């Protein structure tokens, strides 16, 4: 999935407003799996490819906090209800964090 991103960017997947970008970024981060190191490398590529900081931040956050791939294991060990609620809340909070982070930096004149 990851090698497809540059084509998706050029196809105009991002850049449709702060909230849609944040939701899309969060969705990509939720289904992405791999070493956390990879998320910085991919994020850097996305930023240099023209994707906004809000989308990239949402992806960075959900990469670790939401785990669709790990959901069956989490549900098995900690309970299905807990796993579903926690991942859903984490997804929503990631969007809020992405917006707040970028708006805070803009407010402070740092972005």
């Amino acid at each position: 999935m990851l090698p497809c991103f540059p084509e998706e960017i050029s196809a105009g997947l991002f850049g449709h407003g702060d909230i849609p970008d944040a939701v899309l970024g969060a969705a990509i981060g939720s289904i992405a799996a791999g070493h956390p190191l990879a998320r910085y490398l991919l994020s850097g590529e996305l930023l240099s490819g023209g994707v906004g900081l809000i989308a990239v931040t949402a992806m960075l956050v959900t990469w670790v906090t939401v785990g669709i791939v790990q959901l069956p294991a989490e549900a098995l060990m900690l309970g299905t209800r807990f796993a579903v609620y926690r991942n859903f809340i984490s997804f929503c909070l990631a969007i809020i964090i992405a917006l707040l982070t970028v708006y805070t930096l803009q407010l402070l004149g740092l972005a």
Partner: protein
Amino acid sequence: MPKQRHSGLGGWLFLGIVLLGYGLSFLLSPEATADAFAFFRRVMRQMFPVLGLVLLLLFIANLLLTPATVKRYLGKKAGAKGWIASVFAGIFSMGPIYAWYTALAELQQKGMRTAFVATFLYSRAVKIPLLPLMIYYFGLSYTIVLCLYLIVFSVINGFLTERLMPHKT
């Protein structure tokens, strides 16, 4: 005494579904299945050393931590120190998440609050060893602001998750 976990067929069923998934995907796309299996092997290689550490910690915890101790520091009445402990434990936890599910399930059996489990899992987003890389890509200001929000929201995540869970009688 902590309630004994019921060991049903769920684990075997899960394993069976995974093996069936691998089998079916091999029939449809052997290359993609080989990639997926390579990914699985890589994760397992990363996980085993950490799993060893987790099993050692579990052994020590079983020796030293009584349910009363866990309840005092991570239970319903732990208060602020419970939140702080779970945030910092999440930040400093290492390795793949799979290894930590077992440890958290064990601690939950001993009385760890649901909110603290969720807080631990969320605060793992702050990775101390990877902060230099984050600063390199996004700058110091961004890193500080994002990390502060992650810490605050890990507590909110724990609070909300617990609120949604049904209360045990």
